[in-house]
């Protein structure tokens, strides 16, 4: 068996499990190479080389550090969005949540110091997520409507709490979170990377993660399989709120003030990142790795277009087109099957 080169024995499973005697062949045979595995990384590489050729600065350490810093906020809220979309829901409130968390973080930091502020900010995110979750899972509101209401209301709360003014005077140490570096890597990027890792483990290795997919794949079947769908749905939005909370704290550090106007339309970019990654907007299909790809494509596009001096107006057109194209390709592939 160890001399794999001599005997290709295609019927042998990779592991000698109980499946040996069964008609189930334990072979991971993928008939097609999924778009999610090869397609998007390829697109990303092509984009990088194209931008790198047009402007060699693209590959400079400064620029790459910049890109990673710029996309870390989008990355964090897209992680939460992935949970929501996988469970066949959506979380439109994450953009406004950035503003609300920012104001809460800054105000509480002035009262309770650095850690008190950070904790309060993340808690605010979790709390809003909890409210979303109850509205969706218990009151059975469509996720779109519940979080749309929250999108508007959370912005209102942020403006009310702050009186529409930035909250300033934050401690100097707080700057580290947004502007600091660990080696060459910006701290926000490290936080985003850790968050991706944690979310990946949650989605692929925990019961909760499995149930997220199950709810999105077929909610009724999930219920009839004995899954407490109400509980796990609430949890999905709490998780999304927590990631938005972390993003809000990091963003507050980057602007070193509480800003009630932060994060506008970010919720839409997070949805875009998730679907560009290849998740189905109707739930059940997608992964955290795919979302990471979607975030990177959006981030590299924005950065590269800037470097080759495409106006921000035209950038919007390009990015909008890319979103539509990516989903169209996915659908076209599905239809051909």
């Amino acid at each position: 068996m160890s001399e794999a080169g001599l005997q290709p024995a295609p019927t042998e499973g990779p592991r000698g499990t109980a499946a040996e005697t069964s008609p189930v062949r334990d072979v991971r045979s993928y008939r097609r190479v999924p778009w999610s595995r090869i397609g998007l990384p390829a697109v990303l590489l092509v984009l990088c080389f194209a931008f790198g050729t047009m402007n060699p600065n693209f590959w400079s350490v400064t620029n790459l550090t910049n890109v990673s810093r710029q996309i870390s906020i989008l990355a964090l809220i897209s992680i939460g969005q992935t949970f929501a979309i996988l469970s066949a829901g959506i979380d439109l409130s994450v953009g406004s949540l950035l503003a609300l968390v920012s104001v809460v973080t800054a105000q509480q930091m002035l009262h309770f110091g650095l850690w008190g502020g950070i904790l309060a900010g993340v808690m605010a995110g979790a709390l809003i997520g909890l409210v979303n979750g109850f509205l969706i899972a218990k009151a059975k509101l469509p996720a779109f409507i519940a979080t749309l209401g929250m999108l508007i209301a959370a912005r209102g709360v942020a403006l009310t709490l702050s009186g529409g003014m930035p909250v300033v005077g934050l401690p100097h140490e707080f700057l580290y979170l947004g502007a600091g570096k660990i080696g060459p890597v910006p701290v926000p990027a490290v936080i985003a990377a850790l968050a991706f890792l944690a979310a990946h483990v949650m989605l692929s290795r925990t019961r909760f993660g499995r149930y997220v997919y199950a709810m999105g794949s077929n909610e009724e079947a999930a219920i009839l399989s004995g899954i407490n769908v109400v509980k796990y749905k609430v949890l999905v939005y709490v998780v999304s709120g927590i990631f938005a909370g972390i993003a809000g704290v990091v963003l507050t550090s980057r602007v070193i003030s509480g800003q009630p106007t932060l994060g506008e339309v970010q919720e839409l970019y997070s949805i875009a990142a998730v679907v560009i990654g290849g998740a189905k907007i109707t739930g059940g299909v997608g992964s955290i790795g795919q979302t990471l790809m979607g975030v990177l494509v959006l981030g590299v596009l924005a950065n590269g277009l800037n470097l080759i001096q495409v106006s921000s107006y035209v950038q919007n057109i390009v990015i909008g087109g890319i979103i539509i194209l990516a989903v169209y390709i996915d659908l076209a592939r599905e239809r051909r099957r």
Partner: protein
Amino acid sequence: MSVEPNRHVVEMRQIVKRFPGVLALNCVDLNVRAGEVHVLLGENGAGKSTLIKVLSGVYAPDSGEVIFEGHPVRIRNPHDAQRLGVSTIYQEFNLVPEMSVAENIFLGREPMLSQRLGIVDRGRLLRQAHEVLAAFDLHVDARATVKRLGVAQQQMVEIAKALSLKAKVIVMDEPTAVLTAHEIDRLFKTIRDLKAHGTAVIYISHRLEEVKLIGDRATILRDGAVIGTVAIAGTPISELIRMMVGRDLKDKFPKLRVEPGDEVLRVEKLWRKGVLHDICFRLRRGEILGVAGLVGSKRTEMARAVFGADKVDGGEVFVRGRGSQIKSPSHAVRAGLALVPEDRKRQGILASMSVKQNLTLSMLSRFSHKGMLRLKRERKVAGEYASLLRISVPSLERWAMYLSGGNQQKVVIAKWLGTEAEVFLFDEPTRGIDVGAKVEVYQLMGELVKRGAAILMVSSELPEILGMSDRILVMREGRIAGEFSRQEATEEVILNCALGGAAFTTKSDAGGEQ
């Protein structure tokens, strides 16, 4: 009758229709005369719906021909059928709920003020709708919004629509399943009016008493073949039943004899307003309890209520002697219940998840430690269940969507085998799967009861009920109408009980909703 009585409007000759693994129609002949009510009889799966779907252009036959008013025709789609004059009224109506009756009747054929600008002549629309409704004395307001109408009136709208299309043949699929006795009377009056005008009606129903009342001739189908066409007036009901069923069941049902043990499930006075009334029964270890009844007799609702999937208004469910308020399926699973739902696609299979993930979904607690999954162990156990049930699949990582119906059903059943479940509620466990897979499901049921589990099996297939059950409950209109031991049960006895004795059975108005 004003028309020549023996003229055939439709002749279907030697129709053959195959589906993967099933010969649904095997050289079927059907002749329908103008002005007659022609009843199609047969058990579920006998081929009735396939036959009318061929006639109405939903399915293309593999071979055979259709002669319409003496001319061979090709019906390639529902539109062709409509143009010829064949209208079908399915159990689920094809109406736009938000639109008015008149708009529905003439949907897509509205009288226009200006063809070019697409402006509908609302006055004429209403007038024409009114004329159609009045001609057959259908008591429906042409201006009413369809969603505000009751089921019976919506059915009238469907009939009016068929009439406005100048239908010469109207197919009605179980038209009385959702009607009250009074509404049925009115429907029958309308059908008699249709006959008088020379319209043929192809009528599908399981209610034989009703068939006796309204039908002229009946064609009986069994296993996709015609058993015979008879004049209803000269044929007793018992003969019709014999023609529908009579077949050898012995080998199809590998029944294990297991000595029943102690009680594991007791259901007491379960009720849900307008749906379930006073449901009481017991189930012992080693027992298979069959639940028979007509479509709409609320068997599925009963199983779902026991499982906590639907809210109930009263009653108690005791599992293993412990009285527990089962409020949700997750409570039910913890109490030791398992449900294999009726509609595999919508309620059973998680199509975009792998076979492995489907298999282990209800038993994840076995492979998790503080919420973390042990994937290797999960893989191993999933492989074991897959081979135990001979689920043939190239890889356990494959999406469940790509499995055959039989394999999907095995997955839906297998996912309970590794749980604590001891009471299995099987709702139509062999619907839509081939004979081979059926036998495997029956064998598995045998294994389960041998292990000391108990099974409640809801089924519309009487042979299955008779072949597998130790005891049989018959439901009618949300109540338990009778209980029979394996020895005393025959198809006749059960059908009779399901129909409500020899009498006409649709007295209750409570059965109105669906």
